[in-house]
């Protein structure tokens, strides 16, 4: 969120606010 990693143990506590930018990532092919 906003270029800061929200770790799994903070999912419950973290609250999104107006204007927050969210990135969801996944693994893709790479070398």
């Amino acid at each position: 969120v906003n270029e800061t990693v929200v770790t799994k143990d903070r999912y419950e506590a973290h609250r999104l606010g107006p204007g927050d930018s969210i990135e969801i990532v996944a693994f893709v092919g790479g070398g």
Partner: protein
Amino acid sequence: MSDAWSIGKQSFTSRLLVGTGKYPDFPTMQRALVASGAEVVTVAVRRLDLTKKGAESLLEWIPKGMRLLPNTAACFNADEAIRTARLGRELEMGDLVKLEVIGDRRTLFPDVEGLVQAARVLVKEGFTVLPYTNDDPVTAKKLEDVGCAAVMPLGAPIGSGLGIRNPYNIRIIMETVKIPVLVDAGVGTASDAALAMELGAVAVLMNTAIAEAKDPVLMAEAMKAGIEAGRKAFLAGRIPMKLHAAASSPMTGLIGT
């Protein structure tokens, strides 16, 4: 004879590490990964495209039991690489990371200043850092000094297939550091992989040479054989090079003398 090697707490028997990019399709990639005998496969971390509904997941095609090695490919400064490494760890892939900080888009040569900077931070955060670096012994020593678990000098630019362009520097790196040295990038064919192993590399990491071969599965088999042949030759010890001939047959009792 057991010929296992290790990085940090991880122990491996295969000395071939392979990438998962550039394959024509997932089934071919899966067959090539199996044929390579590799135990470690690299993957990249990217934003999920939510518009691509129903897209296949890479992970479903990676054979079970293979260890994933997230990379920080296409990161052009230390901050990007650090963030990408942290994201990879949050995907529950452990603390192993192939660290790349790229300094030039055309050659994809590393930015070694940013690389050392990122390595220092990630080591402190508990990562097992495997940095992709130049074939430069001075940088290799700096990476060892900040706590990297191995160094991975390039044989040649990523995806170039030029082979081991500076075998002398690779040898000097091996003399300079005590941590494992893996040759990463530049391999074009099986003899390149064999040469890297003959030089004394503990392992070789490659992607394009297999993925973009006409027959990726057959090339994966060739690379596996090349790695094994090179390793055996290294252990066996090659003969010294001589300028002149040394006859193999006796020079006594010659017919006609």
